[in-house]
C-alpha cells in the first residue's frame, strides 16, 4: 500500500499513531513492511491456506462474533444433504463435469431451495461470459425461508460445513504450504481476533494483484469470510478494502467498457438465455426473490430510454432487439488470440498499452501485427503504437515492418487537466475535475473523439434501410457543443444523462428509487442516479475536509445514494442499536420522523423508515421481503455469505489450489490447480510444467511482479517523465543473497529470467527483502520484478509481462500474472534471432513439445 497507494497509506500511519497494530503479509519486504509492526513473508500463490488457517483458528476456538454471525450471515442455513466437499473428494466439490470442466451446482444449494441451480451447461456459459459473479451480485434465486439451525450445531449448517472444510488448515499446514512459522502465524490470528468484536474492528486491505490469480476471486472470498465471522463488515474501521490501481478503474467497471456488462452491472444479453426483453430482465430480477435487484426492470428500461430516446417504446421492448448478443468469451485475451488468427479487423487502444501492460506481450504484439488497422489514443508514443517499428519481434526477425500490413493511427489525447469530467476512485467516490486549459495541437478528449466518430458514422448511415443500422439511427446523440472550437460536448450534459431524468420534463431524478419501468424516466447508469440530484453536480462538492466530520459527506459523491460505507446497517445490532458507543455509525432512532428512522453519520444503507422489527409478510418478494435485520440488502437472502450456494464457478468455499505454474505439489489435495480455470490450450500459449508433471525442475523458481512508487503500470504515464525516469531508471530483478549465490548472480550485474514464453534481462538487485522459504521440507526461492518497463520512453527495459502466459480466473476472466515459475541465469539474454533457439532449448527440456497438454484434472499418482 505504501508503494502503490502512498497517499492513501497516510491513514494507516494515522491509525498506527492512535494505537492500531499493523500487519503486512507479502512475498516481498516493501515500504509497507517497513512501517508495519509485523511483516510476514509468504509464498506467492498460497493465500487461501494462510487465510483458511485464520478461519480454522477462529472456528476451532469459537472466536467469531456470534450475535453478528447469527443475525447477518448465512451461518445457520442448512446445506443440501447431497453436497460433498473438497475434503471428501480430494480437491473437487460435488457436481464436477470432467467434459466441460465446470460444476453442476445443484448439490451446493441450501436445503429446501426450490429453484434449480446452475447445471454444468449454465456454469460453462457463465465462465465464458464472466457472469458467475453477476449471479452473485444480482443475488441468486433463494427463497426467504430455508431451514436454519440457530444453535449452529447441525452438521449440515453452513457454520459446521465451514468448520470441517478448514479443519486441516492448521498452523502446521500453513507452515508447510506458505512457509510461515506457526508462532508468527498465531500472532496474526491472535491480533486479528483480539481486535474484532463489539468494541473494535479490523480492516483487511488488499491491492488488486490479488485478483490476478487463477483463484483470484476465491482469495477475496476467503478474506470476506474472515471479516464476516469477526463482524467487521459494514462497520467503521472494518471491511475489505480493495485498493484499485487506476484513477477511474472503479468507474470503468460501474460504467463499463467491458464486454459482458452494461452500465450499473446490468448484464449484456446472451443469445439463448436472453433472447427477449422479458427473459433478460427476469434473469436479473428473479421475480420471486428479495432485495433491491427486484427493481431491475426500472433500471433496464431507463437505460434503454437513455440510449434510444423516443424510439424506445413498450411496443418494441424499449429497443432491446437492437442490442448485440453474446455467445461466449469475448474478453481481451480471447480477442488477442483472435487477432493472431486473423478474425479481427480493427482495434482501438484508449489510454492502454497492452504491448507492455497485458500478459503475454508477444501474443499482444503479434496480434496487433495482424490487423487491418489500429487506432491509438494516448498522450505519448507508446510501445503499442510502435511495435511494428522497434518491438522485440522486429529484433528476432519474427516481424518485418515491410511485411506488416497493420495501418496505425496515433490520434493524440487530452490530459486530465484539459477536459472536465468525473473519476470514480477506489471507495466508489465520484470527483468532478474542472478543465484548466485547452489541449494542445490535435490533442482531443475521448468525449470529443467518440462524439464525432458517432456523429460521422450516424451521418454515413442516415439513409440506410438495413435493419441492422436501426439501433444506430435511433441512438440519442444530440449533445450540444461548446468550447473555443464549438465542437466539444459537455461532460456535465453526459453526467446528467448518466444521473437520469424525467423524460417529460427533463428534470434530474433524485435517486434510483425514482426510476420507472414504464418509459417515463431515462437513466444512463442506475447506481449513479443521484449524482445530479436537485440539478446540482454533487460530484463537484468541495467543502474542505477540515470543516467536516470524519465521514466528510460534503466532498464528492459516492454511489449508491451517497453511501460512504456499504452495508452499514450491520454497524447496528439486530435491534438497531450501535454495537458499541465506540463503533457507532448508523442506528435506528425510534423518536425520529413519524414512527422512527435510521440515522447516523452516513446515509443508512437501508430503507429509512423500515424498523428493525419489520418482518416480511408471507409471500413477499423484492424490497418488501427484506427483513428489518437483513443487513445485506442486495443478496437474495439478505445475508452475508460465508458459503456461496450458487454463482461461483470454482466452488462454494475457497479451497487451496496451487497456481497454474508452481514448483510445489499441492500438499492438501490430489487436484493440483483450479479444475475450472479458463485455459487457452495453444502452441503459442505454453504453460511451464508443474508437479506431478515431469520436468518442473526446468523452471524451479517462483516469480512475482508489482509496482514501484515512481512508475505507473505500463509506463506510458511515467517512463516519459524526466523526474520519474530519473528516480527509477532501469529494469531490475530482486533476488535473495541465497539465490544469488546459488545461481552466480552479481549485485548490479545482469540476469536473464526465462519462462516457456520468453526470456528477459534485468539488472540484479541482491537483497534480503526476499526470503527463501521452507516449503514442504525444501527451500523455495522467489524473485520479484517491476512490470513497468518496455522499449519506448525516456528509460527502457525488457517487459516483465513477456514472461507470463494466459490462464484466467474462471469467474471474472482475469489473468494469473502475479505468480509463475521461471529459471534464472547470470548474464544478458541472447540478442536478436539467437533468442529463438535459446527458448526452443528450454521448451524441449521442459517437455513442451507440440501436442503437450497439461491435464485439467490431476491424475492419480502411482
Amino acid at each position, binding site marked *: 500500500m505504501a508503494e502503490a497507494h502512498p497517499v492513501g497509506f497516510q491513514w494507516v500511519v494515522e491509525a498506527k499513531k492512535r494505537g492500531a497494530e499493523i500487519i503486512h503479509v507479502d512475498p516481498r519486504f516493501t515500504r509497507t513492511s517497513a512501517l508495519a509492526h509485523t511483516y510476514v513473508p509468504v509464498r506467492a500463490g498460497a493465500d487461501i491456506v494462510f487465510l483458511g488457517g485464520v478461519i480454522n483458528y477462529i472456528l476451532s476456538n469459537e472466536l467469531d462474533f456470534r450475535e453478528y454471525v447469527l443475525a447477518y450471515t448465512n451461518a445457520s442455513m442448512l446445506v443440501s444433504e447431497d453436497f460433498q466437499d473438497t475434503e471428501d473428494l480430494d480437491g473437487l466439490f460435488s457436481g464436477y463435469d470432467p467434459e466441460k470442466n465446470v460444476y453442476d451446482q445443484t448439490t451446493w444449494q441450501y436445503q429446501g431451495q426450490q429453484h434449480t441451480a446452475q447445471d454444468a451447461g449454465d456454469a460453462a456459459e457463465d465462465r465464458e461470459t464472466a457472469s458467475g459473479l453477476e449471479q452473485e451480485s444480482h443475488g441468486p434465486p433463494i427463497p426467504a425461508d430455508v431451514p436454519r439451525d440457530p444453535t449452529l450445531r447441525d452438521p449440515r449448517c453452513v457454520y459446521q460445513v465451514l468448520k470441517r472444510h478448514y479443519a486441516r488448515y492448521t498452523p502446521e499446514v500453513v507452515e508447510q504450504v506458505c512457509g510461515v512459522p506457526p508462532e508468527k502465524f498465531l500472532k496474526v490470528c491472535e491480533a486479528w481476533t483480539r481486535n474484532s468484536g463489539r468494541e473494535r474492528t479490523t480492516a483487511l486491505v488488499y491491492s488488486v494483484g490479488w485478483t490476478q490469480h487463477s483463484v483470484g476471486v476465491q482469495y477475496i472470498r476467503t478474506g470476506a469470510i474472515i471479516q464476516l465471522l469477526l463482524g467487521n463488515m459494514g462497520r467503521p474501521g472494518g471491511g475489505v478494502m480493495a485498493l484499485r490501481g487506476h484513477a477511474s478503474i472503479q468507474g470503468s467497471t460501474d460504467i463499463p467498457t*467491458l464486454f459482458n456488462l452494461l452500465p450499473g452491472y446490468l448484464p449484456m444479453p446472451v443469445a439463448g438465455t436472453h433472447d427477449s426483453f422479458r427473459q433478460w430482465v427476469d434473469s436479473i430480477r428473479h421475480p420471486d426473490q428479495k432485495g433491491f435487484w427486484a427493481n431491475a426492470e426500472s433500471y433496464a428500461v431507463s437505460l434503454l430510454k437513455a440510449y434510444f430516446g423516443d424510439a424506445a417504446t413498450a411496443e418494441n421492448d424499449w429497443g432491446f432487439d437492437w442490442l448485440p448478443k453474446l455467445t461466449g468469451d469475448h474478453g*481481451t485475451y480471447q480477442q488477442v488470440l483472435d487477432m493472431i488468427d486473423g478474425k479481427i479487423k*480493427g482495434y482501438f487502444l484508449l489510454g*492502454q498499452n497492452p504491448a507492455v501492460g497485458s*500478459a503475454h506481450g508477444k501474443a499482444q504484439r503479434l496480434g496487433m501485427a495482424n490487423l487491418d488497422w489500429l487506432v491509438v489514443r494516448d498522450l505519448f508514443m507508446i510501445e503499442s503504437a510502435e511495435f511494428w517499428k522497434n518491438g522485440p519481434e522486429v529484433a528476432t526477425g519474427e516481424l518485418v515492418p515491410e511485411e506488416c500490413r497493420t495501418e496505425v493511427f496515433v490520434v493524440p489525447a487530452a490530459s*486530465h487537466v484539459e477536459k472536465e469530467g468525473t473519476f470514480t476512485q477506489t471507495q466508489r467516490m465520484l470527483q468532478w475535475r474542472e478543465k484548466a486549459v485547452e489541449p494542445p495541437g490535435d490533442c482531443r478528449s475521448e468525449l470529443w473523439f467518440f462524439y464525432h466518430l458517432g456523429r460521422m458514422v450516424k451521418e454515413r448511415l442516415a439513409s440506410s434501410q438495413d435493419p441492422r443500422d436501426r439501433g444506430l439511427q435511433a441512438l440519442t*446523440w444530440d449533445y450540444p457543443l461548446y468550447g473555443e472550437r464549438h465542437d466539444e460536448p459537455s461532460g456535465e450534459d453526459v453526467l446528467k444523462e448518466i444521473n437520469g431524468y424525467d423524460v417529460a420534463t427533463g428534470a434530474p431524478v433524485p435517486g434510483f428509487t425514482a426510476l420507472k419501468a414504464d418509459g417515463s424516466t431515462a437513466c444512463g447508469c442506475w447506481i449513479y442516479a443521484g449524482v445530479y440530484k436537485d440539478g446540482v453536480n454533487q460530484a463537484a462538492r468541495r467543502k474542505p475536509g477540515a470543516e467536516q466530520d470524519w465521514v466528510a459527506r460534503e466532498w464528492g459523491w459516492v454511489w449508491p445514494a451517497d453511501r460512504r460505507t456499504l452495508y452499514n446497517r450491520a454497524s447496528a445490532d439486530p435491534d438497531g442499536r450501535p454495537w458499541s458507543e465506540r463503533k457507532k455509525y448508523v442506528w435506528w432512532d425510534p423518536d425520529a420522523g413519524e414512527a422512527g428512522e435510521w440515522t447516523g453519520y452516513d446515509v443508512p444503507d437501508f430503507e429509512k423508515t423500515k424498523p428493525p422489527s419489520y418482518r416480511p409478510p408471507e409471500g413477499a418478494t423484492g424490497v418488501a421481503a427484506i427483513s428489518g435485520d437483513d443487513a445485506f440488502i442486495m443478496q437474495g437472502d439478505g445475508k452475508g455469505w460465508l458459503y456461496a450456494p450458487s454463482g461461483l464457478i470454482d466452488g462454494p468455499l475457497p479451497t487451496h489450489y496451487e497456481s497454474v505454474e508452481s514448483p510445489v505439489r499441492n500438499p492438501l489435495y490430489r487436484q493440483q490447480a483450479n479444475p475450472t480455470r479458463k485455459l487457452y490450450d495453444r502452441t503459442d500459449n505454453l504453460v511451464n510444467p508443474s508437479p506431478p508433471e515431469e520436468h518442473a525442475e526446468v523452471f524451479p523458481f517462483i516469480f512475482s511482479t508489482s509496482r514501484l512508487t515512481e512508475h505507473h503500470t505500463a509506463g506510458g504515464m511515467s517512463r516519459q517523465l524526466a523526474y520519474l525516469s530519473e528516480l527509477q531508471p532501469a529494469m531490475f530483478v530482486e533476488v535473495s543473497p541465497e539465490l544469488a549465490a546459488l545461481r552466480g548472480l552479481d549485485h548490479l550485474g545482469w540476469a536473464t529470467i526465462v519462462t516457456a514464453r520468453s526470456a528477459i534481462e534485468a539488472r540484479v538487485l541482491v537483497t534480503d527483502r526476499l526470503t527463501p522459504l521452507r516449503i514442504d521440507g525444501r527451500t523455495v526461492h522467489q524473485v520479484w520484478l517491476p512490470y513497468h518497463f518496455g522499449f519506448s520512453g525516456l528509460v527502457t527495459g525488457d517487459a516483465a509481462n513477456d514472461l507470463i502466459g494466459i490462464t484466467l480466473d474462471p469467474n471474472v476472466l482475469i489473468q494469473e500474472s502475479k505468480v509463475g515459475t521461471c529459471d534464472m541465469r547470470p548474464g544478458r539474454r541472447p540478442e536478436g534471432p539467437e533468442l529463438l533457439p535459446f527458448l526452443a532449448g528450454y521448451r524441449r527440456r521442459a517437455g513442451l513439445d507440440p501436442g503437450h497438454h497439461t491435464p485439467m484434472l490431476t491424475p492419480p499418482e502411482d
Partner: protein
Amino acid sequence: MGVRTWIEGWPVYRQLTGTDPLGRGAAAQSPRSKALTARTGTADSVARSVCPYCAVGCGQRVYVSDGQVTQIEGDPDSPISRGRLCPKGSASKSLVTSDRRVTEVLYRRPYGTDWERLDLDTAMDMIADRVLAARDAGWDPRHNRTLGISSLGGATLDNEENYLIKKLFTAMGAIQIENQARI
C-alpha cells in the same frame, strides 16, 4: 539610500538584531529573492482537479497563467489526501507540459517503415470509414453484432467518456469492448 537603510540592509546586522540568528532565512535574503512571489500566488486561474494515476483520488489544484499550466499541487481541502501527492502526482505537471507529448496525428500506412503526418479531419474520416468496413466484414446477423472491431481501455478515462464509448459501440453491434478492469 540613507545610512540607516544601508546598515539595515547588511545581512550581518539583520542576523544579529533580527529573528534569524543563524542567518539561514530572512537575514540572508537578497532584494531579488525578497521580491519573488510563488507562481501559485499570481496564477490567472486555479482548477480543482484529481490526480490521474492510482485510484486513491488525491485532490489537485491546477494553476494556470497565460493559458499554460504553471503548477500542480495537492489540494489541502481534500479529506482523502489532505494536500499530499506522491512522486507521480507531484510530477503530473510534466505529464501535462512535457515536450515529448504527441500533439499531431501520426499515421503509419500498411507495410510502411515510418510515421507520416495526417490532419485530424482526414484521420477522423478515414477512421469512420474503416470502422464501418470492419463492422460490415465482421457482421454476424444471427446475433445482431460485429466481431470485426475490438477496443481496450482505459481506466484513466472519465465516466462520461466511458459512457459514450459503450453507448456508441453497443449501438453499432460491437461487443469486443474491454478495459484495464479485466486486467
